[in-house]
């Protein structure tokens, strides 16, 4: 049986880095081989750019660029990185999140995991864009980290 592929959004990565209480089973499931993490240069660059913003470093001085690089190095080492992700889909209300949907489509991911209502919305929406997403990724489930943890529970 193949291991399900999963895409975590930028917030899930950031929570895994600094607030493990909110990550549920997301990264543990990747580390113990129950899920295979998919990443892209766009996603990893966004996580890096936000975690190294001066406002974060000012509030949490231990969040140094070196530490962020180490964190991303570990995450990259456990992920399958898709370097060229075609732009097959755009979510008109929030095109900033397109890179996540396109990664999930290209990787044929089983799960896109997010806390964000705007990213969860296409799963239940009936707009043409949401219908297109379901056509492009018929097996994709867009769920929260908590829902993922419930699914993974034996």
């Amino acid at each position, binding site marked *: 049986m*193949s*291991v399900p592929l999963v895409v975590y959004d*930028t*917030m899930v990565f*950031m*929570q*895994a*880095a*600094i*607030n*493990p*209480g*909110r990550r549920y089973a997301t*990264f543990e499931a990747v580390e113990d*081989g129950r899920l295979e993490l998919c990443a892209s240069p766009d996603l990893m660059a*966004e996580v890096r*750019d*936000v975690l190294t*913003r001066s*406002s*974060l470093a000012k*509030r*949490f*001085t*231990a*969040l140094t660029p070196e*530490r962020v690089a*180490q*964190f991303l190095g*570990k*995450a990259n*080492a456990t992920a399958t990185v898709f370097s060229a992700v075609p732009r097959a889909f755009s979510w008109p209300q929030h095109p*900033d999140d397109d890179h996540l949907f396109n990664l999930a489509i290209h990787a044929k991911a089983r799960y896109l995991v997010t*806390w964000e209502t705007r990213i969860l919305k296409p799963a239940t929406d009936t707009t043409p864009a949401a219908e297109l997403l379901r056509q492009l990724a018929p097996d994709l489930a867009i769920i929260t980290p908590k829902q993922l943890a419930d699914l993974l529970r034996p």
Partner: protein
Amino acid sequence: MASAIPTTETPVTLRLSDRARAKLAEQAANSGQDISAVASDLIEHAVTQPSIDEIMAPVRKQVAESGMSDQELDDFLRSELEAHRREKKAKLS
């Protein structure tokens, strides 16, 4: 890398899934090394490098000491992500 420091031959028997075996073979083919060398590097790295929890422990300590609730921290991170995206867009336009 394992080869840059003194090493000792350590016979082990690996029990791998088909998937792990295929990935190991793929990495070996891509790097021009044999499977033993790739497996040695991976084990060396796994047991000597700090885990994500160890790397991020000082940051998490500061977060805990800040007194921010999970929701406040989420809101803060979300606002930083939104600010980053706004700035990126402004640079591109």
